[in-house]
């Protein structure tokens, strides 16, 4: 702080002496001013100095250049594409955005440069997954300039040595969510190292954190993890043991998987008839009580209120065994075994256990995958037959199976369910629609739209409104091939004035649906146009 500023800060009334006359070239201009008016002199000298300094401002010198982004090797987005993408970003329509980003990936179009910061700021992991491929050379370069965007590097499958150093830092200092992300990433490329890191700190972590870290072991799970997971079975927190047990049963050769298979086999007894050994009945007989070894393996020792303890054991044990095991063990198909268990005292828990096991093992065991459709058919039949709580329960089972099913199978099953629902008043099955993998096939899309049109053309009640509500999902899930079917004229049933609000609501849904489809159509057309132009 120079003397003039010091004097002004303290005040001339407190600052003794004359107004400082620093060796400033501008002060020569003020030589004739009276020395006795100190305030006048101070202000004029300050003003003159300020003007002099303003005119003679010097830049910061020797600033190092930054290495620019390398040349982009993918197609650039047009301004129109950028505008549509910006709208999707601004409205937080992440489902639309994901669809757009996937289209751009397909056409090898990179994100418009001005939207890169917004895209890199996205926190939704599903959006981030889709953002990564369209960042292009420039986006990846930009992400290295801002530590907040390090997820671009962390999200890549390959972990280099320098990446590993960055991961180690996050592992040491990060939040539990960030540390779980580190484990998930490391498990993809170096599961042993991830296990070492986790086991080194495992005992000091809170039970909830131990569970979260352990859950990431599902990535890159191998027999090498068994000793550590076996140790976790004895964890003082039951939830940690149960998580470890769920992981161990995914390893078919693990000691726990074998123990569970043996326990399950002891529960199920097949009755056959005649020399052809035709299956007549499958019975389930769980033990009356279990020992501590069972509990150590994740089988609950206590049941929640309203649940039978033995039923819970059946469910837990059977859920731990790949369903294909039963086809081999008994020599019967999934359909036959499902048929045979019906009417047994433990029919529900057995089917529930098998359903969970099928959903769990379908991805890694093609023989268990064969169980998905028979189980779907069973529960879909129950949905049609049953009412109330039973129907709701069956719907829950369908929800469990749906994410593991192949798209074709799932769409066929869903279309059958919806076709039945379109003729009746039940709309609960429509809740499954959001679980169907997207984008839908053109066949399912057009088939589903035909059902919606059929319902809306003949009804104008609350059921019609519920069907119209599905257009929100359809607008985002329909493939481009189904756009013509979506944009064809819509016919809505005429109604009395008393139900006008429902018709209005239906009209609004249709209007919004068509707007979304037109936006998507415009975006797709622009993507195709960009690909052709460049």
């Amino acid at each position, binding site marked *: 702080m120079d003397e*003039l500023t010091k004097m002004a800060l303290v005040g001339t009334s407190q600052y003794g002496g004359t107004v400082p006359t620093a060796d400033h070239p501008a002060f020569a201009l003020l030589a004739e001013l009276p020395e006795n008016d100190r305030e006048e002199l101070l202000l004029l000298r300050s003003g003159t100095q300020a003007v002099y300094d303003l005119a003679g401002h010097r830049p910061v010198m020797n600033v190092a250049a930054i290495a620019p982004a390398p040349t982009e090797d993918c197609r650039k987005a047009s301004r129109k594409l950028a505008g549509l993408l910006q709208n999707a970003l601004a409205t937080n329509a992440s489902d639309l955005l994901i669809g757009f980003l996937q289209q751009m990936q397909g056409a090898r179009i990179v994100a418009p440069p001005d939207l890169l910061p917004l895209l890199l700021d996205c926190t939704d992991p599903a959006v981030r997954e889709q953002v990564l491929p369209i960042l292009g050379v420039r986006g990846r370069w930009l992400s290295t300039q801002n530590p907040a965007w390090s997820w671009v590097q962390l999200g890549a499958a390959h972990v280099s040595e320098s990446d590993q150093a960055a991961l180690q830092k996050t592992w040491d200092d990060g939040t539990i969510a960030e540390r779980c992300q580190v484990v998930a990433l490391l498990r993809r490329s170096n599961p042993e190292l991830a296990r070492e890191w986790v086991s080194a700190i495992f005992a000091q972590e809170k039970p909830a954190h131990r569970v979260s870290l352990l859950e990431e072991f599902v990535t890159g799970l191998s027999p090498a993890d068994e000793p550590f997971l076996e140790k976790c079975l004895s964890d003082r927190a039951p939830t940690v043991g149960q998580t470890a047990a769920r992981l161990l049963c995914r390893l078919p050769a693990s000691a726990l998987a074998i123990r569970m298979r043996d326990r399950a086999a002891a529960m199920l007894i097949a009755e056959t008839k005649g020399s052809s050994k035709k299956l007549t009945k499958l019975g389930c007989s769980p033990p009356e009580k279990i020992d501590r070894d069972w509990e150590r393996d994740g089988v609950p020792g206590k049941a929640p209120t309203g649940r039978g303890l033995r039923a819970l054991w059946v469910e837990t044990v059977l859920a731990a065994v790949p369903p294909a095991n039963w086809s081999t063990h008994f020599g019967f198909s999934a359909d036959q075994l499902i048929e045979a268990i019906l009417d047994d005292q433990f029919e529900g828990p057995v089917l529930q256990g098998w359903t969970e096991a099928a959903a769990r093992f379908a991805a890694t065991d093609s023989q268990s995958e064969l169980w998905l459709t028979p189980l779907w058919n069973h529960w879909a039949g129950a949905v049609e037959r049953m009412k109330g709580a039973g129907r709701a329960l069956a719907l829950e089972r369908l929800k469990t199976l749906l994410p593991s099913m192949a798209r074709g199978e799932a769409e066929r099953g869903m279309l059958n369910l919806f076709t039945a629902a379109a003729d009746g008043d039940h709309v609960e099955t429509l809740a499954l629609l959001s679980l169907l993998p997207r984008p839908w096939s053109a066949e399912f899309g057009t088939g589903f739209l035909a059902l919606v049109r059929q319902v809306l053309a003949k009804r104008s009640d609350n059921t019609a409104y519920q069907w119209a509500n599905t257009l929100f999902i359809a607008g985002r899930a329909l493939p481009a091939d189904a756009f013509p079917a979506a944009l064809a004229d819509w016919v809505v049933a005429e109604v009395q004035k008393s139900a006008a609000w429902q018709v209005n609501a239906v009209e609004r849904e249709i209007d919004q649906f068509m707007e979304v489809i037109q936006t998507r159509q415009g975006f797709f057309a622009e993507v195709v146009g960009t690909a052709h132009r460049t």
Partner: protein
Amino acid sequence: MRFPSRPVCFPIVAASAMNLTLEQVVQMAPDSASAASGKKLVAVKHWPELGRSPEALWGKCQGSAVYQVKVDLANMGYNCSCPSRKFPCKHVLGLLMLTAQSPDALSEQPTPSWVDDWLAKRRAREETKEAKSAAPPSTPVDTKAREKRAEQRGANVSDGLSRLDLWLKDLVRTGLASVETKPDSFWQEQSKRLVDAQAPGLASRVARLSSIPRSSPDWVGRLLAELGRMKLLLHAHNRLETLESSLASDVRQIIGWNVTQAELDQTGEEVADAWVIVGQWIDEDDRIRSQRSWVVGRKTGRSALILQFSAGGHPFADSIVAGTEQTGTLVFYPGAVRLRANFGHREGTVASIQNRLPGCDSIESFLASMAAAVSQMPWLNAFGGVLRGVTIVRDGESWLVRDSAGHALPLRGANHWKALAISAGHPSDVAVEWDGHQLRNLGLFAGGQYWNY
């Protein structure tokens, strides 16, 4: 009840010169709500009739009624038949956004009569205005009364400036440490006194002082510099008759005397050029909005500041869109450094910037221009222009604009990621306003196009 499907394909026509980007249209909006409402109209279904000609864009928008929307491409003037009190309204914004996003949606057509009539009225109005300014006043001016009013105002201003002088001296007598905890009203009270003394320009300068205390570690020095420059202004006002007429005009304008149209016609300097609107920002000060547009001539390289004010949600008188250029004449206000200007005459249509921006090729030459301007007009608050071939650089938590010689100036604000993403670390032309401490980034030309900021 049938819902007809909407056409989704448009006839392909050649794009016209009016190719504003979506961002430029958004910048024209009076507020973010209007911009959002305009965006909702960016679909052909809302527009039963759309068209364009070399002179205009038009469309009929289906709202609660059918509104007629027109845009004059000669000067971006607009009109809508809706009753909205916002200017431009969402319909005008919607039409411009639609044109920006899907230029092919508006095909070239013969101008309908309702657009023709409007354009004809606008042209007639402009001609009347020009004729009026050229003709002598219709009613005789009461020169005596005018002189008396001027004398009275002169006395009021002198009185107000004397009180300001006392206030400034009081401040440095008691010490600037005492203002650190003063409320905003401390500054506003003095500002209001200057408004009462008919010195509104100086009143704004005093009001702006309130943002300096505690704003940075060197706030005392900055406040003292501003108070000192204000003292110099009072000193100059006391010796007005000894100053050169151009500098005296500057002093009077800073204090708050307006330059009348008649004065501008007499003393304004007309410069013809292809004028590039390199950047713009709006200062929201209480109820008054000030639009500051920096303009640089392609041939003359001259910088100009077009200042517009609006109050109570009224639109700015002229449509000045950053990132566009237009051939025409700028009329520069009198002063030692003729910086402030208005469009006198425009030719052709408004076009988006397609080529690199005119401006300074180094930070040294930009600062030299600033120095030359300050040496003639010491109360210059800001100086705008273009730094050509510079890069945006991050330095810790702060940002810099760096030229090829390694010289740099600090950027105002903490988030310039968009500028970095657009320029990708490569040299680009950056439009700036320099206040002596920091650069305000107003826009940049990179990758063959202009980007609003």
